């Protein structure tokens, strides 16, 4: 079972700051959309708004039949939606295994949790780190654990916020391989927010570019490749 993600006329606010202005985005079930834009364009806010995580919003965010805006964060998780935040947010006091086991709360009877063994099969590196405390992990290890932890609840919609940020090129490649493997082994709908457009577009079926809280391009990855003007205007730093 999988569903389309449909965002309609989404406005988002932090306190009195208006951050997103009428964003529309459709991500068909089982596909990956790269969400591009400069720092501060609203990528993180859009992902948080989809997960209904500490952002005030108006408009509509539907995942299949479910109105995600009506759900508390833990219910969003149990609806099969997982957000992997940009700062990874590993629980430093818990071990890798405990971080993974905590995430079983997101599973439901129809979407049973993945076992630790299955996770280690998907993320072999974590096998050697399983008893290590979160604070003792490197940035790359934390990123892999953050994605692995999101997968424990067997989600169908994965929201990845800048997974390549701050990582060495070799580690970025590993993260890319992991995402590719997840796409091929699971029926996953993915929104991949990135500043590294080369990395993201290589993994995506479609591209959405936002700037100052508005969608400025929305099309297939091939169409995006032909849009030199969009790339230059909205993505060059």
């Amino acid at each position, binding site marked *: 079972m999988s569903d389309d993600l449909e965002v309609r006329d989404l406005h988002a606010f932090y306190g009195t700051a208006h951050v997103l202005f009428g964003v529309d985005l459709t991500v068909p079930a089982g596909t990956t959309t790269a969400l591009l834009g400069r720092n501060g364009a609203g990528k993180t806010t859009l992902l948080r708004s989809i997960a209904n995580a500490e952002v005030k919003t108006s408009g509509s965010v539907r995942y299949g039949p479910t109105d995600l805006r009506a759900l*508390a*964060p833990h219910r*969003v*998780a149990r609806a099969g939606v997982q*957000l992997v935040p940009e700062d990874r*947010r590993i629980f430093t006091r*818990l071990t890798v295994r405990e971080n993974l086991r905590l995430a079983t709360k*997101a599973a439901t009877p129809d979407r049973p949790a993945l076992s630790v063994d299955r996770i280690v099969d998907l993320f072999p590196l974590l096998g050697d780190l399983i008893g290590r405390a979160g604070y003792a992990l490197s940035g790359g290890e934390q990123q892999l654990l953050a994605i692995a932890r999101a997968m424990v*609840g067997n989600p169908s919609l994965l929201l990845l916020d800048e997974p390549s940020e701050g990582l060495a090129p070799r580690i970025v490649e590993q993260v890319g391989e992991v995402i590719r493997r997840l796409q091929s082994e699971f029926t996953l709908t993915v929104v991949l927010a990135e500043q590294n457009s080369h990395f993201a577009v290589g993994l995506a079926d479609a591209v959405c570019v936002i700037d100052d809280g508005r969608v400025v391009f929305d099309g297939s990855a091939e169409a995006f490749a032909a849009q030199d003007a969009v790339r230059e205007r909205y993505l060059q730093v």
Partner: protein
Amino acid sequence: MIILATGLTDGMLIFLVASGLTLVLGVMRVVNFSHGGFFMIGAYLAYELLRGHAQPIWVFVLLVIVASAATAVVGLVSERVLFRRLYKLPEVTSLLGTYALLLILEGGAQLIWGQNPVTQAEPSSLVHAFTVAGAQVPRYDILIVAAGVLTAAGLQVLIKRTEFGRQLTAVAEDRFMAGLLGVNVNRVFAATFALGIFLAGLGGALAGPTLSMVPDIAVTFILQAFAVVIIGGFGSIGGSLIAALALGLLNSFLASDAPSLADFSLYILMAAVLIVRPQGLLGSRQLVGEDL
């Protein structure tokens, strides 16, 4: 010997109160001034159930637990009505909110039980003292020390070895992320609060026979509990245990050898620890879930 026994007993009572306080502070980041109010409610509820008379020990223990559980229920109601609104507010607001609750609890106790002191007898089989190394140690002290040891061990197992402990540790560190992973943060808060208030009630119920009960005990005891939380390190159960025992023993030694200093033991210990380790004995920048 008697000094040691008294110090340990007092220390364990303070620990029971401080452990609940530090738990709530560590997980919810709320400084709960009303904690002492729940200590007082626990003492009075146990008094109501035991009717002030000496009871067989098993009746005493059972009714003390019932009184603590009833206190926890009052705590849960206040969590629902008051605390849930405080989690996201600035600290000053939540300080005022919990202080207001303390006044309400004290006022309520005055209406129900009046200002005149009441006393609760010890359990019938524990009235007498027994002799250790030539000193007379009240048997009731043993019960308090046993309760403290069981509580410390129980909390350690709960936090380190159970699913709930894992959730509590995660929520204490990062409630936002815990929620994203499917943990019902409000439920963890409510359960943690109920546990903290249960411990306050337990402290009060067990302290009953050692006190003359007036509504004011809500304030007198909480001061020591706060000092212990500060000395032990915010959110550290193990730190609270060490600090509470140290405070109890220091109190007891000074009371016998330097009575004029006894009232200052709290401040002496707090100043000494804070000069050397401002974060408290076992404190760190993060809260709860570590050590014991």
